[in-house]
């Protein structure tokens, strides 16, 4: 087994190779990556190196190592990670894995050994508590469809001019190695012209989903503006219910989307109260659980109302509905229109504010490695990405398991169109705890 490792930049070509196939530097073969089984983000470790090749060569190697470590510190101070890496592989047949470095230094000793053309140094560095591989583009799957997969803003399976309307896609992680959840990148591109006004985008991640279903209880008609729903709701696919001071169960709660025995499920929906200033008391429930009552003013927009503490899935795998129970806080009577109610899994999730009103986007990117989201817009200079804030712990695809992503969004004027659709690409860097 030939340990092949060194320092590089941007997971690219070697800047300093420690490998024994290079005559300037030789690891003493005692290096074993630290494997810290906790949530520590950085680990500190020592690598003992033997430099060979004469004084000039040794001086040059030391300079290269120290310059690289300085660079790592400078990038880290500037907030840029994944720039300077320790790379390595245990066998020539393997792919390289990388661990980000945020700084380090060399301790020198045995200079008097230079007489034989060698010097021993110890490289002390701080690196990420994991190793990651090269980014892998992951293929998508959904039912028996073939690529490209359009993601619609509804899930009725209805055939349209651009394909069936589904809001989910399964990510094929069979090519994803590693033992830790992967650093995942998702790119979203508007396929339907109206989507360029995307306002708030929610992405949910389910692991080991048992089915692809993520049905909404109700979903709007093409082009429907929920703000105007009161005038035109008749015959359209949303629910209008009259509320008063008595708790009312919305009929037909959405089933937990492709639920598993371990997932937690959120509850989302789009609501239009006739009296937006009146607070509503609500809670969610399943057959075995109900959440404490919350009092909120239901905004005329896409809302995230909470999550179940455990999977509402029976041991037989059947997805139970999550029911919204609601009343007016002051006992008054009003109607509440509800649409796009769904219970997506929340093994991971992000909510991204894509664009402010007046701007259009041309792509949105969620970068799990850097914990950033950004978008590009034709309104901005070409190639410019604007960072956007997001809520949520992020999304990390899990190798060796079934991974599904679910999408829902509204437009930046808070309108909501079931016929909107986007296309996505997903890539990931596999992660390992140790080499």
């Amino acid at each position, binding site marked *: 087994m030939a340990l092949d490792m060194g320092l590089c930049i941007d997971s690219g070509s070697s800047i300093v190779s420690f490998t024994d196939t290079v005559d300037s530097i030789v690891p003493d073969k005692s290096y074993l990556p630290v494997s810290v089984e906790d949530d520590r*983000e950085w680990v500190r470790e020592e690598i003992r190196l033997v430099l060979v090749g004469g004084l000039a060569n040794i001086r040059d190697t030391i300079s290269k190592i120290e310059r690289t470590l300085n660079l790592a510190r400078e990038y880290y101070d500037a*907030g840029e*990670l994944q720039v300077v890496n320790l790379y390595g592989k245990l066998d020539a047949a393997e792919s390289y894995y990388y661990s980000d470095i945020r700084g380090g230094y060399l301790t020198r000793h045995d200079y008097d050994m230079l007489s034989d053309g060698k010097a021993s140094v110890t490289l002390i560095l701080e690196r990420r508590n994991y190793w990651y591989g090269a980014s892998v583009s992951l293929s998508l799957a959904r039912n028996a469809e073939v690529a490209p997969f359009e993601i619609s803003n509804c899930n009725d399976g209805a055939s349209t001019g651009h394909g069936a309307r589904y809001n989910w896609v399964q990510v094929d992680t069979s090519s994803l190695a590693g033992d830790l959840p992967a650093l995942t990148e998702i790119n979203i591109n508007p396929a339907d012209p109206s989507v360029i006004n995307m306002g708030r985008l929610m992405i949910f991640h389910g692991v080991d989903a048992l089915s692809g279903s993520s049905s909404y209880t109700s979903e709007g008609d093409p082009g429907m503006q929920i703000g105007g729903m009161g005038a035109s709701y008749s015959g359209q696919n949303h629910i209008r219910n009259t509320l008063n001071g008595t708790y009312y169960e919305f009929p037909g709660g959405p089933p937990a989307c492709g639920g598993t025995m371990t997932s937690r499920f959120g509850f989302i929906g789009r609501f239009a109260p006739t009296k937006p200033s009146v607070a509503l008391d609500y809670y969610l429930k399943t057959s075995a659980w109900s959440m404490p009552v919350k*009092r909120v003013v239901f905004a005329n927009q896409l809302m995230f109302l909470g999550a179940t*503490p455990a999977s509402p899935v029976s041991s037989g795998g059947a997805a139970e509905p999550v029911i919204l129970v609601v009343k007016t806080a002051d006992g008054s009577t009003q109607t509440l229109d509800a649409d796009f109610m769904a219970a997506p899994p929340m093994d991971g999730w992000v909510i991204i504010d894509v664009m402010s009103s007046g701007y259009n986007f041309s792509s949105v990117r969620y970068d799990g490695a850097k914990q*950033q989201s950004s978008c590009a817009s034709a309104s901005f200079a070409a190639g410019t990405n604007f960072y956007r804030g997001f*809520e949520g712990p992020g999304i990390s695809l899990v190798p060796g398991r079934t991974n599904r992503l679910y999408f829902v969004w509204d437009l930046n004027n808070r309108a909501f169109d079931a016929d909107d659709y986007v296309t996505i690409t997903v890539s990931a860097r596999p992660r390992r705890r140790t080499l």
Partner: protein
Amino acid sequence: MIHTTLYERDFSKALVLPHGLNIRPEMLSWHAIGGCDAAEIRIEGGKYSVWEMVEMLRCPLTVWNGAAKAWWGYVNRVEVMDGNLRIGVSLDDVANRVRIVYSDIAGSGVTDWLEDTASSAVYGVKEWHISQMDINATTASSLRAAYLSQYKYPIPVRNIATRQARGSKKTTATLTCRGWWNTLDWRYSIVTPVAAIYYDNATGSTTQAVGSAEANTVLMQQITVGASNVYALGVKLLIGKVGSPEDELMIGLYELDKDGNPEGDSVATGSVYGPLLAGPIAWTDLWYSECQLRAGRKYGIRLGRSGDVDASNYYFVGVNAALGYSGGVMRLYNGEEWVARSTDADLLFSVFANAQVASTTQIASQVTAFGQFLTATDLESTSGITQGSYQDGSTTALRAIEDLLVLGKSGGRRYLADVTEERRLRVYEEPAVSNVPYRLGADDELRTALNVPVQLGEFPAGSWCKLMEAIPDSVDVSRMADPSLQFIEAVEWRPDSGMKPVFRGAVTPEEMLRVRR
């Protein structure tokens, strides 16, 4: 997975944070009064990214446990530790709206509020009500401007690095966060008295001298209390002066004798110092200690000067000969007896009083007026207790509300308060001891009644807890409250110790060291 989100100060969306930050809650706490109380968030990352955190003061912050919100509030203090340098900025010492209560030998007064709207637009209104003796109105005004100029923005303060931090090459920051409840301490509560008994129709009014001659040594106006008791705080009168009276115009409220004239000791007294009066007639408040005027009874407002009668230097008050007040008559004392004015008239007056308002209604009013970040108040019951609502502005809304919560529900228990995720203040009666949803065993782990460990994202503060196996049966506890039942006054969470309750009566080290303003 525990994660933290910071938001724009206007709550509109999640903030774009500097790259490469590791944000880790180190401590979260909740209290039965106010809900989310304090949080310490440690931030590690690149030097320049970490330094940008000093811009996060007053930004909303939410700590999530998976999909559940566990703690919410705002960034109150940021301390950056960069090698040997340790710099902190805090909202604690910010004041962008200032007024001065002043006094000197000539009397006392209070300036208007002076506000720096640029600062309050960023951080919210944060008031300072400062009392300063031995200064006059002019000096107070200058002092007010000086305070505002100095404290309108946070002042970075260099602290001494700990021995451990000294020499460190890492740049880290600690965000010290507070729950929204604490922002009620940013504004002073001012609730004005109400006009309880009054005749203030100045149309066609004239004046009546007081203390210019024997014939007007003292003036008296009878008043009649309506169907409810009145908790009088003072009287507003139209007062002017002629010349330069150097004494005081005295006011007293008196019971009346059978002839309708003042008798006995005054119910309440007040005064205004002559030199402080501007001269031309103007509505002037004369305050006295709060007194109760009983429903349906008659009293007399008595006006006289503290010095001798002086025909050149005296006071005058507004009266109206239209005789529109039906609750009593005005009389003058001529040195021998009370007589009607030559042209009969009524004194123009307004007895202002401390309005008696249900304590829960007062809480809601305080939140509406002074809870700038709170969106609503949800009262789960009405207290059935009425209480004076007057606030003179020397107490913050937080203290005023805390005093009202303690009153509790009539015949019941105190009220607790909780600021919800939507920043609504929920006010509810402390649960009965029969409702015990939590338990604590010898392993010191807080659990639900179903014996499931309490998770971050659950809120046990303000609930009862049963101590399991804590006190052996052999201990005689017959003369104590049930020691196995403890009320959870607060809860603190740390990554290594989890959720730890603080029971009522227990004093935390933080409370021992806390300095209250």
